[in-house]
């Protein structure tokens, strides 16, 4: 309910006295209100800036943080005020909402920051007043689009192929992203070349060449070198047909592919040739055949697969469809009106060009678009007057939608440029962040070495935070009886021992070092442990997890590897390295099965969500886990 309603409620209740004499039944008891009657001023301290307001003001919205008892959590008894460690500038707007009942969106603030503040104070963004709602929604949509673009870009384009994709999928991917493999790139350039050749051949074959002996008239080159052009055309069409069939075969959804614009263009580009082959040398039909040859020029649109700019242009035109439609409609109306008027104005003069209204259409169009060929001119005074009005209005009608189209194009083009720039910057950013992460891991390893030395001299100047963090990692090591190591040591071991891992289908592990499924597990346990750390470490460093994942620390459970209890007590040398069903994602510490072997074997081997306590004192019977580090 709106703020005002809360204020008027006492009044409405008082007015209910008017119903009392008419009441059929006895009135219910009023609710007992134990809160203090008198209004008091509350002090709100938001990061140092003190706000004061009446308690009633805040009570208007009891489902928000400030209006409910939730704010008691922030009450500071020493200073007798409510302290919030948030942005005080945004708090101004929040407090104004309580005072006036309308929430305004400050235009200079970041939309995400504002949303977070609203979420903190328990205010739904839908209450934003009409004055600011549009701006808020636009900014929010823009932001979401940007985020969607980023995640989409991260996933789709650069995502590596899953290793066991069919050749069909690989082919499709090669077609969609030519720069993923050299073969695809070569094919891409070859088709581009042939498109260009085909288009140039179409153009050149109409140029007049010197006539052969015995003819006087100039001949178009197409007829002089008919065979040569025919061969070139055949070659191009063969390439295009082959490409189209390959695409059709590789497409994940054939129906959808056949309906897409590019495939239609492909078909239209190669059809005339085949129809020409089939067509007999009939005089009547060859007229239609000539028309078909015009469609060969559509091959130039095949370039849009190769050129980003063409795609943008096409997309712009599509998005400006309504403005273009308006332009056409208004032009048509104006043309019809003026053509009619001109026709009747010029009807009197003999030998006038304006023979009919449709004939006047030509004059009107030429005049309105300010072309003015001069093949039709009015002769009467009325005709000249209306003709001049026509040309003046033409300028206006055409000039109106053009800026809209231009601004649309500019927006889309810049958006595209921004997307490319952002992608490039993202890569740099991620690389830097990975380096920082590696730094933290290295610090931990250094700490362990120093500890091993057990000399106080080695204690460097580390912060309390670092100490605690390292202690935590150390605890984890002790818990799982594995150790963190660094990349190089691991890769050495991996080369020599050929660790058998089978990586999962996670997209973020792009470069698993040649892991194959090797169920017999050839590494001795010690080395394998090291190797696990190595893999984890290297994974962490080459993973392309998005930035958001760096902050989260999940501990996931996975399916229990199919091992009986007896196998859990396997000998030391014969551990199955079974990481099969595990899902990794970067920045996750996943301990699929906790080593839950107790001496009395009473506990089931089911994994608890937190890989916790290492009960097992026996060093032998571990199910091997891989631990990946997310360096915090």
């Amino acid at each position: 309910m709106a703020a005002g309603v809360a204020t008027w409620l006492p009044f409405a209740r008082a007015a209910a006295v008017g119903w009392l004499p008419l009441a059929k039944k006895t009135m219910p008891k009023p609710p007992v209100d134990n809160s203090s009657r008198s209004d008091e001023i509350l002090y709100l301290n938001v990061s140092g800036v003190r706000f004061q307001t009446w308690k009633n003001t805040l009570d208007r919205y009891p489902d928000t943080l400030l209006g409910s008892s939730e704010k008691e959590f922030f009450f500071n008894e020493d200073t007798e005020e409510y302290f919030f460690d948030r942005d005080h500038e945004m708090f101004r707007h929040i407090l104004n909402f309580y005072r006036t009942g309308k929430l305004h969106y400050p235009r200079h603030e970041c939309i995400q920051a504002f949303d977070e503040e609203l979420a903190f104070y328990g205010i739904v963004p839908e209450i934003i007043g009409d004055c600011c709602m549009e701006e808020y929604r636009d900014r929010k949509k823009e932001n979401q689009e940007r985020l969607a673009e980023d995640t989409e870009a991260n996933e789709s384009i650069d995502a590596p192929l899953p290793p066991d994709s069919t050749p069909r999928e690989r082919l499709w991917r090669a077609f969609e992203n030519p720069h993923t493999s050299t073969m695809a790139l070569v094919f891409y350039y070859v088709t581009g070349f042939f498109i260009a050749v085909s288009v140039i051949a179409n153009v050149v074959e109409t140029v007049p060449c010197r006539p052969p002996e015995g003819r006087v008239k100039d001949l178009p080159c197409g007829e002089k070198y008919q065979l040569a052009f025919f061969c070139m055309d055949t070659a191009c069409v063969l390439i295009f047909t082959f490409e189209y069939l390959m695409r059709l075969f590789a497409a994940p959804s054939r129906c959808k592919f056949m309906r897409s614009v590019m495939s239609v263009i492909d078909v239209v580009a190669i059809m005339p040739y085949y129809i020409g082959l089939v067509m007999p040398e009939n005089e009547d039909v060859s007229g239609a055949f000539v028309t078909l040859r015009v469609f060969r020029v559509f091959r130039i649109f095949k370039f849009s697969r190769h050129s980003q700019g063409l795609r943008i242009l096409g997309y712009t035109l599509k998005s400006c469809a309504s403005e273009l439609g308006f332009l056409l409609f208004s032009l048509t109306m104006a043309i019809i009106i003026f053509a009619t008027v001109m026709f009747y104005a010029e009807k009197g003069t003999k030998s006038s060009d304006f023979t009919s209204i449709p004939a006047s259409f030509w004059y009107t169009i030429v005049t309105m678009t300010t072309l003015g060929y001069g093949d039709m001119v009015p002769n009467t005074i009325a005709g000249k007057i209306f003709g001049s009005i026509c040309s003046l209005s033409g300028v206006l009608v055409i000039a109106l939608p053009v800026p809209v189209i231009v601004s649309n194009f500019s927006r889309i083009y810049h958006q595209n440029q921004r997307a490319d720039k952002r992608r490039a910057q993202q890569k740099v950013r991620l690389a830097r962040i990975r380096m920082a992460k590696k730094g933290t891991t290295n610090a931990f390893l250094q700490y362990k070495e120093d500890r091993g030395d057990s000399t106080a001299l080695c204690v460097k100047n580390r912060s309390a935070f670092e100490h605690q963090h390292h202690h935590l990692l150390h605890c984890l090591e002790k818990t799982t009886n594995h150790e963190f190591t660094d990349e190089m040591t691991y890769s050495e071991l991996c080369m020599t021992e050929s660790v058998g891992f089978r990586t999962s289908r996670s997209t973020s592990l792009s470069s698993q070092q040649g892991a194959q499924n090797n169920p017999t597990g050839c590494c001795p346990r010690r080395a394998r442990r090291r190797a696990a750390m190595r893999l984890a470490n290297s994974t962490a460093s080459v993973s392309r997890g998005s930035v958001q994942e760096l902050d989260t620390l999940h501990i996931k459970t996975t399916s229990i590897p199919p091992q009986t209890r007896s196998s859990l007590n396997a000998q030391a040398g014969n551990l199955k390295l079974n990481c099969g069903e595990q899902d990794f994602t970067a920045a996750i510490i996943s301990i699929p099965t906790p080593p839950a072997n107790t001496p009395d074997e009473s506990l089931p081997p089911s994994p608890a969500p937190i890989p916790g306590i290492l009960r097992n004192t026996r060093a032998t019977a571990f199910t091997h886990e891989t631990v990946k580090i997310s360096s915090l």
Partner: protein
Amino acid sequence: MSVRWETEGLQTVGIVCLVIMFLKLMHLLGLIDITETDSSDSDLELSTVRHQPEGLDQLQAQTKFTRKELQSLYRGFKNECPSGLVDEETFKSIYSQFFPQGDATTYAHFLFNAFDMDRNGSIRFEDFVIGLSVLLRGSVTEKLNWAFNLYDINKDGYITKEEMLAIMKSIYDMMGRYTYPCVRDEAPSEHVDKFFQKMDRNRDGVVTIEEFIETCQKDENIMNSMQLFENVI
């Protein structure tokens, strides 16, 4: 011949068009002024009428509220109506928000008239607070007086059956459609008949203020319920 007339006619039309466009252009540029009435000043009329209430001391004398209560009331009132006046439309919309299922506008109209003592079409803060004082802190007689004033639509001192029916209908309208049991169409008039049976002593078809107060004072239920809303503020 006709063709010549056509072209001549069109020529005239063309010239007339040109002249009109020229005149409009001049008017647009402000060089000539072809409008008859001068409409520019009408936009300057003040859209808001402001009202300041009487002083706090006078209000304290007139009502039974304490100083703090008056301050609190005024703050709320001023927040909702910065101009200091509540007009009928605003009043109706505010009151309707409390009864979303039904239509409270008719009853709000009667209520508005009951509060607007000087009948000038808007409720000032004094009216508001005096009315509230009667309803919340007044004696039983004062409250009954107020209720009588509410029912007596034309303020002539008598409640007729028609007036009561209007009031009753407006109250039942506030219930809305979805009630249990369903509100029948005869319900308001039946209720009115019962009311008149109880109140109209001398069976003259109208209820006077004395009959009303007398009957209410004899009715225990009504007297008990009068205490209900005392601690609303």
